[in-house]
């Protein structure tokens, strides 16, 4: 199987769907001539031409709203946000139009759009560019929220997202863009809402998604080697829909849970997960559910401190040991 980067996997997904469906169009800042701020869309303009790959002005509310309007007529826009952090200037369009239009019209209108781009800290770009809004987005019934951690998942999930008839928010990660993984060159889909066991274990379950999956794998390796602790890692992949069956099955197996999220803790995804696990598997738990989040302040610039503000393998390792105490 070819070994390709996360960004290439996303590009392959878009290229395959552009080829498959003439209604798919890529919109965003610098996606065409510049080849994408993070080179995710590199080469697509040359292959598909300017009608399908469209550079937009810096005008997120305008072009996201435009994409929503076009989707009501059956166009399937895949809209790149250079950073998900900029969702805030287009939030009215996302939550009042994309999320609500099907409901407010009594089910008469679909909104088959994908909004995709990176949502992560860890690159020393300060508080304005380091938002992780998956909890905020998932708070709105009507949208789906996907956060892939590997190249394989990114391709299969994005293809499903593009074919989905509901609006899908697809949150990538600039730090993962260069990660390589095995990705089939042909057509495959990963259904939204299906979690993946990234590592099997017996002592504790880490429930996580996005880049913390990769960090948790590193921590689990150390825990096994140095502490003889066997950690199971559940990668949610999709926040909404949410695969609780896989989470609960793992809890029944290990009886201890650590939720790891690159999220501020208050009303974060981890809070929802912890509530659901205790509510649905209370008798299976041998210890309180532990939670590791981003340290609760605006994202700091200072590079060494930012690394400590976010989840990282050492913080995860420590949290696992504490949870097993």
């Amino acid at each position, binding site marked *: 199987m070819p070994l390709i980067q996360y960004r290439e996997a996303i590009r392959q997904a878009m290229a395959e769907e552009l080829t498959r469906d003439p209604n798919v*169009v890529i919109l965003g800042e610098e996606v065409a001539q510049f080849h994408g701020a993070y080179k995710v869309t590199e080469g697509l303009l040359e292959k598909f031409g300017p*009608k399908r790959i469209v550079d*937009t*002005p810096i*005008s997120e*509310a*305008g*072009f*996201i*709203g*435009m*994409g*929503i*309007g*076009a*989707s*009501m*007529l*059956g*166009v399937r826009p895949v809209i790149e946000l250079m950073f998900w952090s900029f969702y805030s200037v287009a939030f*009215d*369009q996302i939550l*009042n*139009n994309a999320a609500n*239009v*099907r*409901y*407010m*019209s*009594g*089910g*008469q*209108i*679909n909104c088959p759009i994908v909004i995709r781009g990176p949502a992560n800290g860890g690159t020393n770009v300060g508080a304005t560019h380091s938002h992780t809004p998956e909890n905020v987005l998932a708070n709105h*019934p*009507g949208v*789906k929220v996907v956060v892939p951690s590997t190249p394989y998942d990114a391709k299969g999930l994005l293809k*499903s997202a593009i*074919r*989905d*008839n*509901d609006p899908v928010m697809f949150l990538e990660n600039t730090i993962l863009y260069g990660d390589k993984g095995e990705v089939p060159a042909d057509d495959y*889909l990963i*259904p*939204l*809402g*299906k*979690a993946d066991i990234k590592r099997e274990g017996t002592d504790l379950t880490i429930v996580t998604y996005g880049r913390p999956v990769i960090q948790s794998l590193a921590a689990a390796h150390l825990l096994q080697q140095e502490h003889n602790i066997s950690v199971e890692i559940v990668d949610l992949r*999709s926040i*909404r*829909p*949410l*695969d*609780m*069956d896989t989470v609960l099955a793992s809890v029944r197996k290990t009886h201890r849970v650590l939720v790891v999220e690159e999220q501020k803790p208050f009303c974060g995804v981890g809070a*929802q997960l912890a509530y*659901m696990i205790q509510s649905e598997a209370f008798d299976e738990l041998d210890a309180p559910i532990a939670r590791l989040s981003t340290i609760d302040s605006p994202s700091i610039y200072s590079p060494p401190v930012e690394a400590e503000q976010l989840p990282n393998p050492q913080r995860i390792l420590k949290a696992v040991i504490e949870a097993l105490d």
Partner: protein
Amino acid sequence: MSKKSSATAEARSEPGTGNPDLSGAPVNASLSVEQKVGLYRLMVRIRRFEERSLRAYQAKKIGGFLHLYIGQEAVAVGCCSLMGKDDHVITAYRDHGHAIAVGMEMNPLMAELYGKATGCSKGKGGSMHFFDPSRNYWGGHGVVGGQVPLGVGLAYGLKYKGLKGACMTFMGDGAVNQGSVHESYNLAALWNLPVIFVIENNGYSMGTSQARSSAGELARRAEAYGMAWGVCDGHDLFEVRAFMAPFLEEARSKCKPAVVEIRTYRYRGHSVADPDNTYRAKAEIEEYRKTKDPIQVLQNTLLAEKVLDEATIEKIDTAARAEADVSADFSEASPFPTVADLQKDVYWEVDNPSERKSQGRLFFN
């Protein structure tokens, strides 16, 4: 192409022609007697529907807000009467007039106001959120200016699919200072999208007059984007049609966007929650009602043309009142949606379970 608009005669000119006389515009001259009567009937039906809805509101049959269009009927009917099969309409929350103007029936509209399952949006949208995509009517949007990018998207979709239509994107004068509107102007002009931005200027953004809220002339802002623009009075249906037709044709045939301002007036407060006693004089409302009421103006014209007579006027009015009463009875008798209906029409996949591809939970209680 840009157009001057400060003088009324110029404002009424068609794009590129400079012809100030619109009375014999082909778009009006070609109307049959039946069509003229039909347009008059539409305006009367909108008026009577809204008067009936106000009574229902006062009787506490309707919740929330009720933004009445009374006084503005010639704008929606004039513009929407020009629609071809590939033309589309989207508007803000003062949306009852446009809904009836595109052909929606009173029963599902009144039932929507009553919050009933038989409403056009199954009781999920309410007054501000009427929709009928089968008639190219895309709502009905509650946030000031929020629908304007969607209108650009409809135009983008038309052009992408190679259809020769245009999207009339309505907004109030209070919307013109929203960022989303300016972002929309830029995209439409930059990409030559077939959209007409129609500013229905009723003089007041809620309780703040135009003079207190907006710098400069509203439609002239189009000049900054290199778009055509124009201004017309909105109380005369034929004038609205004659004014709009060439803009629509330019949009359809050449993908030329434009911004138009149609000057109109609302008799009622911003919504029924507005006591309307702080920001304008009663005499101002009375003056408009006496001299420029759009239904009266059209009635006078059609009487003079002998298209209408008193008996027909009476018949149309009686029928419209009866239709509105029937719609209220229909709504009263209709069931409310159920609590189980809350989680329908949220996700396409949930409503189409046999075609669902995703797994996992989509709802969390």
